[in-house]
């Protein structure tokens, strides 16, 4: 190439890059995202900013609530990067779903509905927008347990969109995890969401201020910046912020007790799970994860960098792909060394104990996840029920602590993972109304179904305990007929519950049949982790290899609003396990002691015979060396 043409080419490329907005330099990390190298906790004495980025003067007559995204992200933390982290990215396109996690379970006792929802593409869960549940309805139900930012989406109705401007959007709530202040109250956050005070919730939860009033009482035209326009009768209900003057230092700056590593108590607010019998009873009788009992914190294993791609720590998770350190945070990686050959010293220099697993055939490590033996409630002849913080509002004001309160989460179910290993799972049996479209059941919006049933006085009175209403197939038939009549020409209406699909046959009667979408939604149990002495197998092989072994032969309770729930066998969830073989193996176990005794005795006598022969040979050799002659040696 000639020099002149080279220069022209370079200029052209430079010009194209300029037009394309090629960054002149890489974006510099923000002040708070530059590790100082100090292990001490960074001090946060900061100005509060409202959602427009203006500094809040707490002494103002009508101060605004502070915005977490503006206060934390104004110039210190890269909120846009953080918002792509695991806790925030469920609804973002292109994010790997990973294995099934705990869904958001929409319950409506009046319509006998219990449907798992998730913005992630998890097998068995339904995307809220596909069920006609808009972001506002979702935020009102579940916003208290998600730190993710939420604003209107395509499934919101026109009314919902109007209400978003009244309530404000839900921002990423950094404080939910990072505020270690003893006065930070996520239950207050939940209460504020119930009042539609979305933009006020973080402020109220922080303890920096008291928030009064309720956006839910404001009209669709309410403008929080112009409270004077509200009619007099509603003036007392206008959301207002009353900052606590004693929480501010000179210069109107407020000290926050912010920790880089979230305190486990913060995690527990959303990630607690307990036996149904425990809420309302004495906590000291409950067990605890062995790691927590040994003084560890959640974030020591469930860790992340600035991108907040917090590790879930199952083998093969996308976040650990190509990341040896993240890979070492799984059970196996920490205790046995990761697949890439990293030594089992444990991350953070924790020196995790190497499990000896004495007497455990290696096959078990190939076919079982670590959690199979070491996590979740101990199995028995029938599955039990669990409550989780997110599903049952544990820790919130007025949470229904009744053991029968919906949703009903069944555990432990020993099922096959994607990699073929068996692992313990929780299960929730879907129950919802839908329409058959191209061989699949598309769930109907539970709120629409409820309004329809309300109009026809068919909705059921929810029982006081919060459990299933009393329904039968006659009621199912009535509702199916109603759904058919309400939308002529629409696909066939069906009801899924208790592992079955219910539909009307040609004669108008209800018939039930098996359907893949009626199978329970399963998500793995990771905690509480039990130590070796409490693991399955600690009492011997017959913990699992017995005729009545719960891991293979237990009854899985089928949860159904209809009376005939019944049970399924555990083996239903273990397609690669030969139940007949497991039974044969269990039956043969009683002979194992005889086998051991016979083989041991034979081996010992054979050894003695061999030693006797060797003795004779040595005697002979000695005789030969000493010149003596014998007939036999």
């Amino acid at each position, binding site marked *: 190439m000639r020099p002149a043409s080279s220069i022209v080419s370079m200029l052209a490329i430079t010009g194209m890059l300029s037009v394309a907005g090629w960054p002149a330099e890489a974006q510099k990390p923000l002040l708070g995202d530059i590790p100082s190298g100090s292990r001490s906790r960074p001090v946060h004495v900061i100005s509060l900013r409202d959602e427009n980025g203006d500094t809040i003067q707490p002494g103002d007559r009508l101060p605004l609530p502070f915005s977490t995204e503006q206060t934390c992200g104004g110039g210190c933390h890269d909120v846009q990067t953080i918002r792509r982290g695991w806790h925030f990215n469920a609804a973002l396109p292109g994010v790997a779903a990973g294995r099934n996690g705990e869904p958001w379970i929409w319950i409506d006792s009046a319509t006998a509905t219990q449907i798992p929802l998730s913005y992630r593409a998890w097998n068995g869960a339904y995307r809220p927008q596909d069920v006609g549940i808009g972001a506002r309805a979702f935020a009102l139900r579940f916003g208290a347990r998600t730190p993710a930012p939420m604003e209107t989406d395509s499934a919101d109705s026109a009314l919902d969109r109007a209400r978003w401007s009244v309530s404000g959007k839900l921002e990423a709530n950094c404080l939910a995890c990072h505020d270690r202040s003893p006065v930070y109250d996520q239950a207050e956050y939940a209460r504020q969401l119930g009042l539609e005070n979305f933009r006020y919730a973080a402020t109220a939860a922080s303890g920096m201020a008291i928030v009064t009033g309720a956006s839910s009482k404001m009209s669709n035209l309410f403008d929080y910046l112009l409270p004077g326009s509200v009619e007099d009768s509603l003036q007392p209900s206008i959301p207002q912020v009353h900052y606590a003057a004693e929480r501010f230092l000179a210069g109107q700056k407020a000290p926050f007790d912010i920790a880089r590593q979230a305190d486990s108590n913060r995690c527990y607010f959303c990630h607690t799970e307990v036996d149904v019998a425990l809420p309302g009873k004495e906590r000291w009788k409950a067990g605890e994860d062995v790691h927590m009992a040994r003084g560890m914190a959640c974030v020591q294993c469930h860790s992340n960098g600035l991108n907040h791609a917090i590790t879930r720590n199952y083998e093969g998770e996308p976040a650990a792909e190509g990341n040896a350190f993240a890979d070492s945070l799984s059970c196996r990686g920490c205790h046995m060394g990761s697949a890439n050959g990293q030594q089992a010293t444990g991350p953070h220099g924790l020196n995790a104990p190497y499990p*000896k*697993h*004495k*007497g*455990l*055939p*290696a*096959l*078990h*490590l190939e076919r079982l996840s670590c959690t199979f033996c070491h996590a979740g409630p101990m199995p028995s002849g029938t599955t039990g029920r669990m409550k989780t913080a997110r599903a049952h509002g544990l820790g919130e004001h007025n949470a229904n602590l009744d053991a029968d309160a919906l949703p009903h989460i069944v555990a432990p179910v020993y099922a096959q993972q994607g990699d073929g290993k068996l692992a313990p799972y929780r299960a929730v049996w879907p129950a919802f109304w839908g329409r058959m479209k191209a061989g699949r059941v598309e769930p109907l919006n539970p709120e629409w179904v409820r309004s329809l049933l309300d109009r026809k006085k068919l909705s059921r009175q929810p029982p006081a305990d919060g459990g299933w209403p009393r329904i039968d197939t006659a009621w199912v038939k009535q509702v199916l007929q109603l759904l058919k009549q309400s939308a002529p020409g629409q696909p066939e209406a069906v009801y899924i519950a208790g592992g079955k699909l219910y539909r009307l046959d040609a004669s108008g009667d209800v018939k039930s049949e098996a359907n893949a979408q009626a199978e329970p939604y399963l998500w793995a149990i990771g905690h509480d982790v039990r130590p070796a002495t409490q693991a399955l197998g600690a009492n011997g092989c017959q913990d699992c290899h017995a005729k009545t072994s719960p891991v293979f032969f237990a009854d899985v309770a089928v949860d159904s609003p209809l009376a005939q729930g019944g049970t399924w066998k555990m083996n239903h969830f273990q397609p690669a396990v*030969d139940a007949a*073989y497991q039974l*044969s*193996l269990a039956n*043969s176990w009683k*002979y*194992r002691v*005889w*086998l*051991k005794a*016979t*083989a*041991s*005795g*034979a*081996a010992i*006598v*054979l*050894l003695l*015979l*061999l030693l*006797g*022969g060797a003795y*004779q*040979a040595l005697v*002979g050799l000695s005789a*030969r060396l000493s010149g003596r*002659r*014998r*007939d*036999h*040696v």
Partner: protein
Amino acid sequence: MYRTAVIGVFAALSFLIAGDLARRFRLHRVRRPVREADRTDWFPGLLRLCVNLAGAVCLAAVTVTGFAAVLANTPALGGYLLMAHVTTAGGFAGAALAVAVIWIWRNRFTHAECERLTGGKGSSAPPVSGTILLRKTFFWIALASTIPTLATALLAMFPLVSPAQQQVLLQIHRISALSMVACSVLFAYCALAAEWEHRGN
């Protein structure tokens, strides 16, 4: 590699035995009628026959169940085949002990055999049968191989060794079992051949 070794050992055994059988049939050894003295001592003979038959059957069973997975080139011995292997192994352990007890006296090495084995030139020693010498040699090697074969399987059944150590035990088990089977087959064949030679004489 182990599969190749197993196939090689079985092929070599077949070749050796077939070759020797052919040689013996070509020599037209005449079978001697059963002597009267043998008839009078019928119970020990019957017992020996039963024990030997039981040993042979158990060996065959444990060999088939043990090596079937290897020969079929499946990743590991498991499922019903493993259950059958373990079940037959219990019987084999008892049968092996009985066979050892029956044969151990007859398989002591004589001075002359020791001389021959060690390459000595003893003048006063009676002539030594090569078949009997081989029988005795294979008996002792089979006996020595049986012990680690049993011990490795047994150790893995107790909560004494880790899964990684069990893999080492498994390798020892596989090697010693192959040696045991090969030597047991050769021992059995030599015992039969020696009997034929004895009757032919």
